[in-house]
């Protein structure tokens, strides 16, 4: 399992992003995604989310991230991909939100 830490801007679009991400992930992965669910490990109020995905399918999730949010004025950026949940949680709680400069605009 790999854990992808994502920052979403605006922060209230996390649920929309996760639904879209799931759609595009399945479209790109095709039959490889049968029986696989994206696992939302933790959501942070600031607009950060940790998504768990099986190792061989990380490339499809990262590809889907490029596509999601277009046409809906939503930004979505990968902060880090981690191999363990513990490390992912530590990174997510210590690294500054990438869109912090846009929040006060």
């Amino acid at each position, binding site marked *: 399992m790999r854990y992808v830490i994502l920052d979403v801007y605006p922060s209230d679009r996390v649920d929309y992003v996760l639904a879209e991400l799931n759609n595009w992930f399945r479209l790109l992965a095709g039959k490889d995604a049968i029986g696989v669910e994206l696992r939302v490990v933790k959501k942070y109020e600031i607009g950060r989310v940790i998504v768990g995905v099986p190792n061989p399918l990380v490339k499809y999730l990262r590809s889907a991230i490029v596509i999601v949010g277009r046409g809906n004025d939503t930004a979505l950026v990968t902060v880090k991909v981690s191999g363990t949940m513990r490390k992912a949680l530590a990174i997510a709680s210590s690294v500054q939100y990438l*869109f912090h400069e846009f929040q006060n605009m």
Partner: protein
Amino acid sequence: MFVELHLGTTDRPVINLLKRLGYGLVALTVGNNGIEEIPTFRRLVITQNSTWKLRMVKNFDIVSVIPWSRFVLNKFISDERIDLITINDINKNTLPTKPQARAMAREGKALEIVINPIINHGEQGLAFLRDLINEYTTVDELMIVISQGINNVTDIRNPRDIIELIHVLSSVNAAPLISDNPYELIVNAMYRRGVCT
């Protein structure tokens, strides 16, 4: 280090975000800046209605053209002032043909793919992008460059994700297309303009 050749904004927060994502060089398609966070180059984009701007070439570091037909492309391929041929739409009629692509490689012109406007077309855009990369990576010596085409914060994606997307679509290693190739292009353009003699 990643290079973005199609930045259409001078917003400080956008520049700071690009820096945090690993970008080390950018080329601005809009006005002048005073950006100090990141080395910035000025880029002129020639379109169908702005060919008169070619007279201003000396004020810019990089010159690109968005071809509006294959016939004009023939003219621009042999024009020494042009560094880049840009593809930013899913119109197959304006794409360089294989012989034109070979001529571009001979003349030292690079092919730039701006992915944001292409991906905005959804599945159709992804198929176009796949075909584009599959077709032109087979042309020997043709330098291909991938830019995001950033005009505001919502256009920004992690360049490592873009590398993965290109790999998923076409099995091509896109890392050089987003880092080494654009860097080399800027260096070549500077030498051509006589900045580094």
